[in-house]
């Protein structure tokens, strides 16, 4: 316990340095903005801003990128409540009750409970990350190569199982991601694989080019094909203060949402949107106001908003302690760390104490900042929505193009981005979920390393994966997760949850 406080004190020392504070604020600010704006999500934004962070120390870079992710969860709720327009996927359920509340003249209360609930959940989740980090790290250090391989396999399976749409297709996307990760120089023999003799590919496909192409540019094209939805703010924001009755109804929901969100965030493949859907379903069943759902029940705002913020933060746990990204945003974080020369993994807590504890403390500081950014400045964010998409997309395109070029100062990366934009567009048209692809791409090379090492140690005996207890348990969980999703009943439930 004492050590924890000592570490947290160290973390606050790092997080409170002027530079880190500034970048946390910048991240929270940008995050809120893209949370408010529909049509650009955290994955595209983080990949867009990845190159900008290269000049900064690793800790500062990760602090800012993390700020974007949880900032987007805050911002997404604002437009969901005021305009019935979810800025983020995770805010879709907030529109259900939040917009109804706004129609009833309680927009201020809905915004306030969304922000306060998120703040509470974020604070709890931060403590959870701080406490579990070193604990999980101790466990992870006893992992052998076989256990690691199975852990990553589990991560891939779950990220596919929890993706939207057909499970078999999502597994296909994960494997495709692993395949893309094979391009480049083979680490052990130095042989060029799938590079077509192109020297630029000997270091592998450009990670930022894939992310920007599929999530950034591909998304622009799809948005242009959809007719633009213009919405006008009709409801008044009204008083931000909650009545006693509203407090009494909201507090239990916030607590439940925090718990559920924290748990779902840790799961590989979990994350903010899953948590908010889960919490909505739970509140409809469990809360006293459940029967009022559909008419503007505050429980339906408080629970999911707390849950998505808690999950956004706890999804850092597998990344920071095991080096396993649990969703596409975390895959981007792995990419950012690797570019900074840091190998994510269980040794990070020891070898990068500044980064680990600094990030945790900055998350809490970021939550305080978000409270200030969001509540008093709501009018400004709503104005931002009036910027038409036709002015936004050239800006996104320009930032992508310069950003991806500046990574290696090579135009080949720009053309790579174009190639992946075509692919991303095709994926969207064919309803193939791209998020698992990114997770597969990041984990693929690490998996190959661990597979080789495990098989070398076992003298080529594949039984090692079931003989080692940790590995066996992980594989059983992976098999169960896949098996359950093939059951028609459960699959239908998942589809319902995903559709809100």
């Amino acid at each position, binding site marked *: 316990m004492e050590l924890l406080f000592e570490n947290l004190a160290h973390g606050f020392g790092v997080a409170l340095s002027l530079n880190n504070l500034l970048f946390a604020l910048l991240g929270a600010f940008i995050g809120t903005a893209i949370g408010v704006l529909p049509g650009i999500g955290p994955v595209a934004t983080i990949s867009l801003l990845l190159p900008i962070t290269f000049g900064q120390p690793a800790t500062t870079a990760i602090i800012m990128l993390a700020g974007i992710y949880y900032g987007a969860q805050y911002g997404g709720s604002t437009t969901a409540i005021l305009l019935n327009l979810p800025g983020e996927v995770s805010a879709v359920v907030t529109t259900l009750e939040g917009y109804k509340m706004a129609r009833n003249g309680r927009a201020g209360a809905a915004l306030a409970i969304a922000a306060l609930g998120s703040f509470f959940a974020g604070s709890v989740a931060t403590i959870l990350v701080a406490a579990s980090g070193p604990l999980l790290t101790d466990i992870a250090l006893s992992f052998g190569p076989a256990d690691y391989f199975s852990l990553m396999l589990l991560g891939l399976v779950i990220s596919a199982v929890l993706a939207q749409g057909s499970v078999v297709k999502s597994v296909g996307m994960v494997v495709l991601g692993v395949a893309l990760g094979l391009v480049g120089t083979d680490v052990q023999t130095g042989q060029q694989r799938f590079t077509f003799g192109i020297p630029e590919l000997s270091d592998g496909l450009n990670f930022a080019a894939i992310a920007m192409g599929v999530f950034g540019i591909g998304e622009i094209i799809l948005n242009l094909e959809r007719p633009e939805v213009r919405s006008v703010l009709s409801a008044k924001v009204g008083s931000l203060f909650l009545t006693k009755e509203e407090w009494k109804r909201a507090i239990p929901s916030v607590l439940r949402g925090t718990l559920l969100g924290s748990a779902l965030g840790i799961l590989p493949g979990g994350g903010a949107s899953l948590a908010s859907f889960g919490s909505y379903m739970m509140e409809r069943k469990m809360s006293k106001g459940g029967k009022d759902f559909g008419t503007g029940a505050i429980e339906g705002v408080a629970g999911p908003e707390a849950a998505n913020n808690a999950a956004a933060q706890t999804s850092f746990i597998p990344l920071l302690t095991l080096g396993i990204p649990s969703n596409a945003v975390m895959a981007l974080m792995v990419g950012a760390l690797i570019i900074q020369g840091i190998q994510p993994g269980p040794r990070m807590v020891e070898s990068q104490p500044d980064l680990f504890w600094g990030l945790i403390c900055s998350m809490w500081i970021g939550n305080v900042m978000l409270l200030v950014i969001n509540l008093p400045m709501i009018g400004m964010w709503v104005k931002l929505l009036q910027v038409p998409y036709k002015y936004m997309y050239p800006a996104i395109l*320009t930032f992508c193009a310069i950003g991806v070029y500046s990574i290696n100062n090579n135009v080949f990366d720009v053309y790579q981005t174009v190639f992946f934009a075509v692919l991303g567009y095709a994926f969207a048209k064919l309803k193939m979920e791209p998020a698992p692809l990114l997770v597969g791409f990041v984990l693929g090379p690490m998996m190959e390393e661990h597979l080789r090492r495990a098989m070398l140690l076992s003298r*080529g005996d594949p039984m090692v994966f079931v003989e080692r207890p940790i590995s066996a348990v992980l594989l059983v969980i992976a098999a169960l997760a896949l098996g359950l999703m093939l059951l028609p009943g459960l699959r239908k439930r998942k589809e319902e949850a995903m559709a809100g």
Partner: protein
Amino acid sequence: MRINGKDFASALLLLALAGLGLWLNTDHTLGSARRMGPGYMPMLTFGLEFLLGLAVLGISLFSGPDPLERWTKIDFVGLFLGVAVGLVAYPVLVSVAPALGNNWYALGIAMMIGFGVMAISPGWRKMALILAGMTVFGVLLDRGGLFLAIAAMVVIAALADPEHRPLGVLGSVVFLIVVCWWVFIYELDIRVNIWPTF
């Protein structure tokens, strides 16, 4: 039988990529499970991908109906012509002017021509114009400088949205040049020409 067009096409895509990967992988030594060669993991990965492709193919026969969006005749022709012209243009450019082999000029110009052709068909226009804009950025950046590259990209990409008016596009160009100069040149100091050097 209710065929799901989207799943069917996904399956073909997965199978094609897996087939390509397995074929390319014949160059690599497999090694044994104990001492894996460079070709071992690709074999596992693409093999699994191929099986998944077959599974999706099987499912697609019954999971429909979810047809692909209708393609007009001109969309087919546009896609085919665009890809064909781009593929022909690349080797032609390299053999006619070997200097274009540097800095991927030939690749960029070939892609530009290909997207240009695709933009003729209404179905592909938005995608082709956005991507042509980005390609032009790559082609112009080194010699034309950052400002010209941004201007050309924004103008071409703006054609993708019929709502754009000339004045608005001009405003976007100026605004983006100023912002990019401030962020990428002044703050981040990336190594790139900003003015043309023809």
